[in-house]
């Protein structure tokens, strides 16, 4: 049985197949509208989420399937002290596939070790978020027409930003991509990403602390939010939260065909004044998230249309 815990669980071929399937769904939605009739998706969200949970649920509904689940640990048996293992085993009796978000790193991995049905990691703490990565890959493919030969800037919280870690790992398997890592010193990417992804694979990267010095080099800028919930100390959060704000003045330094991505939700790191700029693709990215999750559900359930 196949699970999706880490973006690197999928081979490049499997990722390309999922993206191809997502593109096919986009081109002919009607054909897939009953593909998962009679199937159930359980969304086990031990941590609050809007976009990810609703996009999973919308994805399953658009495939003709049903959804069940909970949206916070307080409304599950976790509040009574039930273990993750027991919750997953129990829900596996009721659902055909599980999407799970948990504040602790590795919780979906443990779930997959005890589960009788496929588990999708819908985000585990600051660790991984592979379906966001698939969303990002689909977005890059749709916006740029390719998944190789570009320069991507990753900006903001690169330490706790799980979307960034997953995306770097997934993109590292494609050719000709240069990485520009833009973050304050306190929020730099973890050392293991540098040594085990960039250096091990001889990938070109650089670390900088300001956006202005690199804006003109970028084909894609991937903005992230400084996440309050990842800080043990609120004073550190307050000090770092407004470090980078992408606005019209910074965009003047950018290429005409820049793609501005953001996993959302944003707070103030992207000024709303640039939302109408054709280079802003973060809301198209959110829509892509639904299509790619439809493709992933079909793929893990082994459903063909």
């Amino acid at each position, binding site marked *: 049985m196949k699970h999706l815990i880490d973006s690197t669980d999928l081979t490049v071929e499997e990722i390309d197949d999922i993206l191809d399937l997502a593109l096919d769904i986009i081109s002919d939605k009607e054909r897939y509208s009953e593909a998962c009739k009679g199937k159930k998706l359980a969304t086990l969200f031990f941590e609050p989420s809007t976009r990810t949970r609703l996009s999973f649920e919308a994805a399953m509904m658009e495939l003709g399937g049903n959804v069940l689940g909970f949206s916070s640990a307080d409304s599950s048996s976790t509040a009574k002290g039930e*273990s*993750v*293992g027991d919750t997953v085993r129990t829900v596996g009796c009721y659902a055909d596939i599980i999407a799970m978000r*948990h*504040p*602790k*790193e*590795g*919780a979906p*991995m*443990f779930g997959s070790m005890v589960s009788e049905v496929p588990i999708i990691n819908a985000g*585990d*703490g*600051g*660790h991984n978020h592979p379906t966001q990565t698939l969303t990002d890959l689909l977005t890059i493919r749709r916006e740029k027409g390719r998944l190789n030969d570009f320069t991507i800037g990753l900006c903001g919280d690169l330490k706790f930003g799980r979307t960034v870690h997953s995306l770097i790992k997934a993109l590292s398997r494609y050719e000709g991509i240069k990485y520009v890592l833009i973050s304050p010193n306190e929020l730099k990417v973890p050392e*293991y990403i540098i*040594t*085990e992804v960039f250096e091990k694979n001889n990938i070109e990267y650089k670390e900088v602390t300001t956006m202005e010095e690199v804006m003109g080099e970028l084909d894609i800028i991937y903005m992230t939010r400084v996440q309050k919930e990842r800080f043990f100390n609120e004073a550190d959060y307050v000090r770092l939260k407004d470090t980078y704000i992408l606005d019209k003045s910074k965009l003047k330094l950018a290429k005409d065909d820049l793609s501005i991505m953001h996993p959302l939700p944003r707070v103030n790191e992207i000024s709303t004044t640039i939302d109408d700029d054709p280079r802003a693709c973060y809301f198209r990215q959110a829509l892509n998230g639904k299509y790619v999750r439809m493709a992933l559900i079909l793929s893990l359930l082994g459903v063909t249309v």
Partner: protein
Amino acid sequence: MKIESIQNGIVLDHISAGKALTVYHDLKLDKLDCSIGILQNVRSSKMGKKDILKIHQEYDVNLDVLGYIDPNITVSIIKDGQTVEKKKLALPERLINVKKCKNPRCITSVEQDIPHIFNLTDKENRVYRCIYCEADK
């Protein structure tokens, strides 16, 4: 000081000086009901000083634990007073319940009865990573 020679059991030799008690602890040798000799700072032509552990009982030694502590330790199986087998150690590819993950954000910090598993990700620098959170050991 007289240390009896072993008739049936195991000798762990070439333990780095000062590490015998770590080996004793990590192999949980305190659970055994047999005599165990712990020799510390024994003179060694190769190592200068070394520690030796002699376990006077047949015992299924956890080679992964030993390999993790020090892959240069030699393991000799003794039967009827003779060495019948010498086992070679290597850095284990996977550690199961040998060490605990110390990352407070890891699922292992809250889930009961979860196996603590580490995979060897960098042999040269002896880096092990928790399979759940990827924190290194």
